[in-house]
């Protein structure tokens, strides 16, 4: 599906003509913005966070007058965290829904192929949660992110393992996915810098979708590791933690932002298995002073804006700000504008470097409490 940009441009001109005619007839004009992520499938919890966050942002921006006087209309795109479906969703959002910009996707393995589609069409895309370095390393001008990178997140975990936990033997497990293996490798690279990579006694990948990791756990036990680092998502992190504890291994457990979700308590079968696990993730947005009004509004409406919710909110804010600032919805012009301005968001002021990465990114460490909640650790 690689149409030259000419027919698409022509088509949108014809459509724009049609729209302005209907505009004369009195219909309200809207700006369509896509929200793409795993709305179904095993990682739907993250997709729901995206959708809730973006919906709240659209509501608030519309109430304040919209973008250049037009109201925002969100279009949902479901990639189920599958690369093939992600490119199909990207094409649909562009060809059928004619979105002007996109918030998404979640899984790096989906974001990477989908963002090529958006970039080919010159459409701005901001991912609230894809942390793999490749997302912005490919030099696609219209691709941005609202979160940090795994080569910042992994090293934070590595420093903690070496300096605070003083681990002697480390087992590294990943889920063979772009995100999971990427973050595990970033952690290991930092261990090399710390001259501690000889402490890695095991480095292996498990299969996503499986539930039985007992053989791997026994192997970890045999390796004598005192610390386990897992690169992957909560669906596998939960059963892995449970089986570690059930086999009587009192090892330290660390993971990344893909595991930091209350759903891990369900997948592990109870808070007693998750207690004491450490995880790195984007800063807890619910504690930032600038987000308090939005947090209160969403909590009053019955949704706790955990995880990436406020990151999705901020992504839509950035899109709206750039459209207001650049007075266009042309992706290339918006990208240029975003890279030269600082945008006030619910997460505080944000600005981007030439690659589309945030200039300030900070990850935090979290620890799971006995009651099945997590809290940000003091730095």
């Amino acid at each position, binding site marked *: 599906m690689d149409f030259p940009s000419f027919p698409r441009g022509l088509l949108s001109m014809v459509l724009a003509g049609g729209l302005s005619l209907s505009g004369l007839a009195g219909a309200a004009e809207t700006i369509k913005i896509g929200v793409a992520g795993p709305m*179904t*499938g*095993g990682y*739907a*919890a993250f997709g729901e966070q995206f959708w809730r966050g973006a919906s709240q942002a659209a509501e608030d921006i519309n109430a304040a007058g919209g973008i250049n006087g037009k109201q925002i209309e969100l279009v949902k795109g479901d990639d189920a965290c599958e690369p093939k479906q992600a490119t199909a969703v990207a094409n649909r959002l562009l060809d059928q829904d004619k979105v002007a910009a996109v918030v998404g996707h979640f899984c790096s393995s989906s974001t990477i192929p989908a963002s090529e589609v958006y970039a080919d069409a010159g459409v701005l895309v901001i991912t609230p949660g894809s942390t793999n370095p490749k997302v912005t390393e490919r030099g696609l001008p219209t691709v941005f992110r609202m979160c940090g990178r795994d080569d910042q997140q992994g090293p934070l975990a590595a420093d903690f393992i070496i300096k605070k936990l003083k681990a002697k033997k480390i087992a590294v497990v990943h889920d*063979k996915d772009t995100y999971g293996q990427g973050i595990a490798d970033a952690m290991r690279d930092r261990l090399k810098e710390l001259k501690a990579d000889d402490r890695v006694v095991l480095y*292996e*990948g*498990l*299969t996503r*979708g*499986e*539930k*039985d990791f*007992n*053989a*791997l756990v*026994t*192997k970890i*036990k*045999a390796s004598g590791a005192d610390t386990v680092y897992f690169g992957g998502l*909560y*669906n596998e992190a*939960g*059963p892995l933690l*449970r*089986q570690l504890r*059930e*086999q*009587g291994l009192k090892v330290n457990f660390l993971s990344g932002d893909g595991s930091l979700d209350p*759903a891990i*308590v*369900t*997948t*592990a*079968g*109870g808070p*007693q*298995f998750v207690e004491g696990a450490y995880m790195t993730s984007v800063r807890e947005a619910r504690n930032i002073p600038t987000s308090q009004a939005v947090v209160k509004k969403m909590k009053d409406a019955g949704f706790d804006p955990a995880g990436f919710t406020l990151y999705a909110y901020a992504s839509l804010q950035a899109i709206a700000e750039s459209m207001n600032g650049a007075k266009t919805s042309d992706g290339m012009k918006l990208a240029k504008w975003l890279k030269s301005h600082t945008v006030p968001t619910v997460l505080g002021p944000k600005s981007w470097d030439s690659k589309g990465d945030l200039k300030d990114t900070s990850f935090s460490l979290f620890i799971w409490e006995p009651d099945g909640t997590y809290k940000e650790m003091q730095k």
Partner: protein
Amino acid sequence: MDWHILAQQLVNGLTLGSIYGLIAIGYTMVYGIVGMINFAHGDVYMVSAYLTAICLAVLFSFGIDSLPFALLATLATTMLITAAYGWTIERVAYRPLRGAPRLAPLISAIGMSLVLQNGVQLSQGAKTQGVPSLIPATLRFGEGHDFVQITLVQLMIIVVSLTSMAALTWLIQRTSLGRQCRATQQDRRMAAILGINTDRIISMVFVIGAAMAAIAGVLVTLNYGSFDFYIGFVTGIKAFTAAVLGGIGSLPGAMLGGLILGLAEALFSGMVNTDYKDVFAFSLLVLVLIFRPTGLLGKPEVEKV
């Protein structure tokens, strides 16, 4: 490798293998009788995992906290409902296609599998669901750091699968129903002429296979505690592999294939590498099929002239 690590891997492999074996029975029996692969069988197992969680939740909400009773009631209810699923699937997707070329029921089986997956996803949500750990008891052998352990649930898995296997073998070898099954397997038309209601027998086979998958679903839910609408796919493929490995159409073959597959996965993962354990399992299958095309315990099929 230390003895306790090896022993632990054997325990892991036996547990996993028993589950594969239980599910493989469904594949092997259906193949034996109607000569087709029921690709919806893995999803029947997935449905039973959901039923287990629902049953347990209902029982506990009524304040029934006697664990043995709750487990037995759950097992019975789940087997009953899952068996009804098996019966319905046969009636809806296979019986109308009984006379059709073999490819047609194969496609309808895949369709049935998709219907079950999407139905569960729509009605129960796509998120991974979980059951809290109910039986934490563990038997440990050895001292200090060097021990082998088997959790009560793992022990239950091995004992229950072997018992159900024995009961099923008795059913097939010693009862009138079993005789009718074997007759239908040998020659469906001749069996029908001799007064066996072959349609009923085929339904029964689907029901028995589904009930076995239900036992697996209950045990797995107790053991791992987490499941989603997609678990039937991976486990189904593995169990199907186990059935082919053991010799499709053979009941003891299904159990043997399951155990070999489970042990192979655990030992390869434990001694060599977890990344490639599935590659190893399937290479093993290919090797067996090269030297024994009918599987380990399968009988060579005689072309009837």
